[in-house]
């Protein structure tokens, strides 16, 4: 049996007094890309934020590498080996590309430097704009920087929230390709609206609706299941 790196069990969460997550349960197997699907406002982003500790868990458990991480402080969760690429990318606009990377680097040893080089080979644009402020990058470049930044530390798991949002199709292909390369080395939990992209890199999927995990299966099978797609994803 495949060991799961991250396991959520009946997680509930509130934002202010609004009950957003009702029952989120899923597993992320090590070494795979797992995809969360669902309509706008279904609770996907909140799920990622809750894993990251940016949102409180009010009930249920979040288990990472056999350890309970629900309600730890965000920086502690990050230091356990989880990288986060938020929906809005979270680029530090007034810092240069290089400084953005430096903020992320926990140590500046040989191994990290090596990873950095590897990542920069993946995104040559970043090297080119090394001294440019992050805010001046294009949407696609920002997305690449956000992914590179999450990757530069040796993380066990990357949470990536809608990397294709607002990007031109050609750029989406580029981002897809880079994530495909990364998945060789890191486990990824991906939230994605672009079904084409998700089906290229994802293996297992979970559908979230109304703050609940309502369905799961293999990505290949989902493509054929028109009924399911229409019901939860609104695809006709």
């Amino acid at each position: 049996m495949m060991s799961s790196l991250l396991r959520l069990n009946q997680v509930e969460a509130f934002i202010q007094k609004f009950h957003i997550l009702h029952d989120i349960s899923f597993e992320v197997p090590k070494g795979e890309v797992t995809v969360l699907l669902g309509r706008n406002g279904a609770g996907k982003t909140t799920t990622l934020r809750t894993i990251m500790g940016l949102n409180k868990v009010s009930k249920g458990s979040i288990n990472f590498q056999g350890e309970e991480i629900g309600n730890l402080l965000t920086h502690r969760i990050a230091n356990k080996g989880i990288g986060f690429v938020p929906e809005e990318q979270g680029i530090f606009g007034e810092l240069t590309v290089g400084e953005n990377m430096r903020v992320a680097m926990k140590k500046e040893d040989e191994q990290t430097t090596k990873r950095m080089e590897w990542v920069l080979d993946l995104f040559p644009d970043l090297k080119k704009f090394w001294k440019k402020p992050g805010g001046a990058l294009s949407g696609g470049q920002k997305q690449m920087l956000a992914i590179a930044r999450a990757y530069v530390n040796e993380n066990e798991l990357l949470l990536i929230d809608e990397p294709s949002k607002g990007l031109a199709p050609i750029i989406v292909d580029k981002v897809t390709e880079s994530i495909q390369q990364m998945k060789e080395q890191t486990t990824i939990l991906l939230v994605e609206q672009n079904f084409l992209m998700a089906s290229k890199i994802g293996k297992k999927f979970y559908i979230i609706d109304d703050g609940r995990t309502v369905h799961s299966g293999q990505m290949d099978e989902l493509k054929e299941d028109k009924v399911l797609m229409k019901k939860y994803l609104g695809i006709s």
Partner: protein
Amino acid sequence: MEAILETKDLSIAFGGHVAVNGVSVKITEKKFTSIIGPNGAGKTTFFNLLSGQLTPTHGTIYFKGRDITKLSTTNRTRLGIGRSFQITNVFPNLTVHENVRLAVQSQANVRYQMLAHFNHYKQFKEKANELLELVFLDDKANSLAVNLAHGEKRKLEIAMLLALETEILLLDEPTAGMSLEEVPAIIDVIKKIKGQEDRTIVLIEHKMDMILGMSDEVLVLFHGELIAQGTPEEMIENETVQSAYLGGQYDEQLT
């Protein structure tokens, strides 16, 4: 056909990022126009330019032939351009009824009256109640707006917009974030307004089926640019739209 609202080469850039790029459209009077496009295509930014929340970097906006590019939000509302917001934007610590009454009051031009009690204006109270009934919020009239559920806040937004009785209604994803059961009610409200045939409605929406049923015209925004314009049927046939936006058979509706 008369164009009530027209933009010429409308653009806005934030830093290096061009959010809306050279958009020229004519919105026909008393018709229902929908704007579609994937997340981040610049739809809401375009609305913000129309309603005056943002000032374009260049380009012009005409309302009934008059250049309104430099007018404030307030003046545009008074001219007849009302809008609802995607991010719910109400008065949190006032009651639902008061929220609507403020809009009614503005429409009735009672702006600086400071001597009479507000209850003196019975007609406002009644009109506010009617509007709340229309959007199915009458039983929440005395709750504070902050305590409403999200879907209810969206309904309140619509009631406030209707209260202004503007000639143009700009609706920014009126059903976003509502539960599936709530959506039909809102669509009914919008259809009712459309049925009266006395308003120009411009709507941003993702749900294709909703647009198909109601729109007279569809504009497709992609990357800040207007890539296509036409009837819903034409849009479905249109290849540019297909390849750039719909991206094959699946992924359009996911946004």
